């Protein structure tokens, strides 16, 4: 059985456990609530920009929950029994990741079907839907990959805190800007600016991916955005698998 086959087998195994544990009810209720509050037929027709930005934010938020819950399922002592077999650490981690994607992409699919059936988005044809959907799904994959990389089974706590600190620094532009930056000594301000630029570059595909899913404007070099998203996903997953394969395996009790 190939690594891909084992990964898919383990993803199915994880999904069955996730469904039977009842945790999926959170996604089901959240989806129902989101549909009722955000996407049901209203007085004015729904615009594509509204649909993609709203569903994009909702599914991103949901990915935090689903990702944490499924990765917690993988961080339990029963995992030792699986990893004592020929499953392998790579397929184990990627199986968890695939299960996260299956749930979050599935939720997106359900919302799209409900919207199409009850409150179609005005002026959105299949092509437009595909153009908006691709970067949106890649953004979910990106967030799921980041959660996988930051899970306790992959990175030890000091490393997780370090990565989170770097992400926070990359996002610090909205908090430390303008007058605050001006009040800092010049070398510090320049250093911070450089750090932000360097650190936020890897996150650029995520932001621009969200923007392109809303605008569906692929003119110029925008076509490179989904490609960059894809490479970022692959890079993060490769780093996660590499680290997990070399880590000592101590699951949470």
């Amino acid at each position: 059985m190939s690594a891909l086959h084992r990964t898919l087998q383990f993803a199915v195994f994880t999904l069955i456990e996730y469904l039977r544990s009842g945790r999926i009810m959170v996604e089901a209720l959240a989806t129902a609530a989101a549909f009722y509050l955000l996407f049901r037929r209203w007085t004015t027709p729904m615009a594509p920009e509204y649909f993609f930005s709203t569903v994009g934010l909702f599914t991103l938020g949901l990915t935090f929950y689903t990702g944490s819950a499924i990765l917690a399922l993988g961080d339990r002592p029963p995992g030792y029994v699986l990893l004592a077999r020929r499953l392998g650490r790579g397929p184990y981690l990627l199986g968890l990741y695939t299960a996260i994607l299956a749930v979050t992409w599935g939720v997106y699919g359900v919302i799209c079907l409900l919207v199409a059936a009850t409150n179609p988005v005005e002026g959105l044809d299949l092509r437009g839907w595909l153009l908006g959907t691709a970067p949106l799904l890649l953004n979910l994959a990106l967030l799921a990959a980041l959660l996988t990389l930051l899970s306790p089974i992959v990175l030890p706590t000091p490393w997780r805190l370090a990565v989170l600190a770097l992400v926070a620094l990359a996002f610090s532009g909205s908090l430390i800007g303008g007058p605050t930056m001006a009040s800092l000594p010049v070398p510090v301000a320049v250093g911070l600016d450089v750090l932000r630029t360097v650190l936020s570059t890897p996150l650029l595909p995520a932001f621009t991916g969200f923007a392109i899913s809303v605008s569906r404007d692929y003119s110029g070099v925008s076509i490179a955005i989904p490609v960059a998203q894809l490479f970022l996903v692959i890079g993060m997953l490769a780093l996660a698998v590499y680290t997990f394969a070399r880590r000592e395996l101590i699951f949470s009790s």
Partner: protein
Amino acid sequence: MNVIEIEDVHKAYEDVAVLRGVSLNVTRGTVYGLLGPNGSGKTTLIHVMLGFLRPDRGTLRVLGSNQLQRIDGRVGYVPERLRYHTRYTAREYLHYLGRFSNLSGAALSSRINAELGAVGLAAVADRQLSTFSRGMLQRIGIAQALLSEPELLLIDEPTSGLDPGGQHDVIALLDRVRTRGCTIFIATHFLDEAELLCDRIGVLHAGRIAAETEMHMLRGPGGSVVITVEALPPGMAETLASLSPAVRCTGQEITLAPNTPALQARVLRALLDGGVAILGLVPQHRPIEEFYLRAVRGEKAPDRTSQVVEPSPDAIVPPPPGPSGTGDTLLRELLSREEGRQRSEPESDA
């Protein structure tokens, strides 16, 4: 050939040293029991063998390989504390674990049916594991470990947390498993388990193998025995004392110290011939218990050069249980006579 070769393995969690130079070898086809108190590092050693943890120092070869993450298909593992995915039925669970061991199709179905039958769970194969008792869960644990017909079975605390009935079932099951010929490594702190199942035992204490011996050296009636009787007829105490200086009579108790099967047989025969009612026969210090306690108390420096630490010099190490006619057989005879007497009494009353 050695299936497990461990030499001077050290392992620490941050600043806490758990293994401090463990060395042991396990020969193919044998059952090795690793005894040790809770927290002595038994599970850590098994996890090192499975490649989950890396030793800080020392060498380790399992099934001839030091690439421990690559021997997984040839090793069966039964974890401690019944840690399984309980939202599956027994059959589903074994199906997935079989797939993860590269089994599939009819061969997998046949292996699942065989192992469920072997552990006595065929009738509940389609019940969810969450409804299983702890004893049943441990049996499914053994079934999953045997599914891929491993060369080596690593079992961590197989009867921990089970009630006496469950413990008995699991020990009986493991006794059947040992006849399959695979090498078995059991970590436990239950001496009965080791006594019944193991060919060789080692005591892990203070991060090292504090003592190690062949199990047959420790089997037998025990270091001393106290026989309790209803009452001794006049002259019987003297008769018994004349059998050996090891016999002492105090009231209703006859102490054989040190005990041997031959002496025990002679004393029981004398009591039987004298018509004395025997109320009990209790071994006082089992050799394995003494061996274990001495090791964990550090009462005797382990002789690591010979790899075999003998039991205490003052304890008599008897040979394996003797042929019929020794104490064991006589005791059974006495008990059956007693049962016969009790059965006949109500009839005579009537």
